């Protein structure tokens, strides 16, 4: 739907939702969102506008007339609630796209999240930090480091000014800073930030939590670049161990009821959600596969370490209910075991494989 800038009143300038240029197009559904051209309209629609379009119209129309003050206050309250809701939706969408590695699509969603957060909380609030971080992450993903640095500088300053923000936020901030410096090639600086990341993550979740592994993994990569292979190797082991312990616990929990009732226990998506969210799932998948690659490419293969990684991957796919992949990795372990018969098999593996076979038969 086209709009004509010259046809508007003089004080009203219509701006593009994304770039802020003079707008020539209007969203035909909500009629309160403007774009400079069809590309911006498309990218916003794909990213976030499709989800929030119906919510916007009442927010962007002028304040309606009410008779009493209570009504006015109620309405204002309602609008505030809606904005908060929008912050949540937009942030979640941005996160989702970031997890999928879809940085370009994540950008408009993150931008909206930031914008609504500012409207609600003002400029100096800690609430803005997640949005800043999402924007920075998207920019790092797109390779626009200067831009990412700017967002991160904002986030860092906000965090520094507010004394009471939790370890969780610190952890995310330093993760992004570390990634930024790593992308810039400033390895020492990035190491410093990853160290902070690990520290704060341990503070927030404990040293054995899988959320700490991200920092360790990034550190390992940096050490690998610095050609300190022994450190990288020991960090990879640490990461694998943490994941293995965590997944082992989950897998045992799932296998337990099956043994008791001798029935096929339906592993639903919900159990996986309890175990870890989508972001962690993607991160875990990336990390474990990268470690597997690293192990495969090593000049001298170490069967113990190799087996550990494969075992972890089997468990991982099992917990994520991807049984085919789990079986594939499980079989690789068995093959490896034939080559090196002196190595012990992980104790949970036989029952796990049996369980997977049953499951696959049932699905056929």
């Amino acid at each position, binding site marked *: 739907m086209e709009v004509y800038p010259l046809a508007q009143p003089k004080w009203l300038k219509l701006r593009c939702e994304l770039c802020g240029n003079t707008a020539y197009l209007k969203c035909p559904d909500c009629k309160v969102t403007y774009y400079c051209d069809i*590309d911006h309209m498309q990218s916003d629609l794909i990213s976030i506008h499709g989800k929030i379009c119906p919510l916007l119209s009442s927010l962007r129309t002028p304040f309606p007339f009410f008779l009493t003050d209570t009504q006015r206050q109620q309405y204002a309250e309602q609008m505030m609630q809606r904005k908060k809701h929008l912050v949540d939706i937009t942030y979640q969408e941005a996160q989702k796209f970031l997890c999928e590695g879809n940085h370009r699509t994540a950008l408009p969603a993150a931008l909206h999240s930031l914008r609504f957060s*500012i409207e609600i909380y003002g400029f100096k609030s800690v609430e803005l930090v997640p949005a800043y971080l999402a924007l920075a992450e998207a920019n790092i993903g797109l390779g626009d480091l200067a831009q990412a640095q*700017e967002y991160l500088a904002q986030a860092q300053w906000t965090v520094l000014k507010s004394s009471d923000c939790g370890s969780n936020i610190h952890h995310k901030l330093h993760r992004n800073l570390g990634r930024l410096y790593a992308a810039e090639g400033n390895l020492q600086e990035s*190491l410093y930030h990853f160290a*902070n990341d*690990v520290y704060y993550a341990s503070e927030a979740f404990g040293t054995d939590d899988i959320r700490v592994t991200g920092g360790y993994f990034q550190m390992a990569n940096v050490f690998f670049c610095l050609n300190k292979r022994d450190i990288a190797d020991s960090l990879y082991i640490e990461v694998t161990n943490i994941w293995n312990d965590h997944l082992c616990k989950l897998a045992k929990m799932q296998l337990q009821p099956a043994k008791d009732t001798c029935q096929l226990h339906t592993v639903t998506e919900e159990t996986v959600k309890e175990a870890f969210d989508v972001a962690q799932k993607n991160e875990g998948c990336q990390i474990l596969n990268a470690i597997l690659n690293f192990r495969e490419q090593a000049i001298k293969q170490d069967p113990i370490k190799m087996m550990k990684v494969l075992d972890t991957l089997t468990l991982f796919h099992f917990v994520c209910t991807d049984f085919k992949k789990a079986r594939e990795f499980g079989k690789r372990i068995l093959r490896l075991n034939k080559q090196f018969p002196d190595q012990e098999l992980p104790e949970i593996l036989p029952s796990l494989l049996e369980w997977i076979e049953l499951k696959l038969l049932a699905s056929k």
Partner: protein
Amino acid sequence: MPQLLTPEAALFGETHQQTMSALSALPFALAKTIAVPIQQPTITTKSDPKIERIHLIKDKDPKHDVSMDIKEFSKREAAVYRNSHKQNICIEMLQEGFHKSFREFFTLIDKWNALREAGGPGSDIWLLKPLDEQYDKLDQLQQFLTLAEAAQRAGRHEDAYKNYLALANYFKNSGNDWLADHFFQRCFDTAKFIKLDGGKREAEAYANLGLVKERHGQLATALEHYEVFYNLTLGRIWTDGKGHTQHSVACENLWRIYTLLADKMLENKEHQGAIKILIKAFEMAKEGGDNRLKGESAYRLGLAYLSIGKTDAAITFLKTYMAISKILGDNVGIGKANEALSKALESQGKILDSIQYLEKFIEIAKNNNVNQSLVESCICLGDIFNTRGRYEEAYKHFKKAYETACNLPNLPLLEETQVYYGIGQAHKMMMEYCNHTEVVDFINTKFLLEWKENRTDK
């Protein structure tokens, strides 16, 4: 192509004018990343004449050079001031790649706090400063943990072991027992990897772990550890820092633990088991070559045999003890041996021998001024005479015991001797009294009544 507006306007729509001015720090190159290429902003900072002039003035300022010399704080240095000591240490360790040290460090502090919470107000650990505020300890931890990890990574397990041992000893000396225990356990884990030294470190680690368990009262586990230590040191000539051979140390440890176990069994009246263990202890002491220990266990064995009535065995062990005590010149020991021997002989009915031993000892005790034992032997001897009905001699010995005890600062002993002295006196009087009552005549009765009234000794 659309014209790019000011950065602020690019971010915010027309409807949010009130928020625009304050958002100068927000990035504006966003549009570039979103879609089609957009031309660069027309105004750049370089062409701004004002900024250029300020820059020129600053260059000419003579103070400018001075300000260059003043060292400014980097972000990191500022962060070091801002953050806690614990955090700084953690980050330093992580940055150098010592993630295991970090993990251990972190969990130890957590454990300390957990123990503190569990102990509640008033417990020992509650009164101590939290670990994250004891900077010297944190520094020690950092130093040795990182050294150990570096050594371990390079495969030099021996160095790692040394560092853990240093930490364990440090905490032992500073009174943090559970921390010391933790690091002894670490030593033990590390020592398993050390193969080249023939198991010396492993043996040491076992010994240390045994000590830890012993302190916690887990005697059975401690015994196991000590036994491994003993087996490892068998036939080796390793020495510890003080010149003792490790093997003798092992023997001593085993001896101690056996003795403790036996004591426990004796408390529960399991005499047979106790004797078996005491024999083991005796063997250990013999093997360790320490006479004092040997004597000690011989004495304990003697007593144990005595308590189950095997006096012959008891007498042989007590004689061994006496011989050893004589070699060592240990008069208290000789006294104890004499006393126990006389008891043993007494129960066998060989009163004469028994008396002989005690008299021998009293001689020794008198010459060496060992008053405590003197008193005890005197009582003992007196007791024997008393039961044999030789009240005159019994009285004499009790008196001596009382007189000696008067000079000792031991009040219970004094009271005891007082009672004995009283008994002795009473029994001595008995003879006379009996004589008088046997001859039932008026004079004697009168005599007795008279005595009863004024109670003076004649």
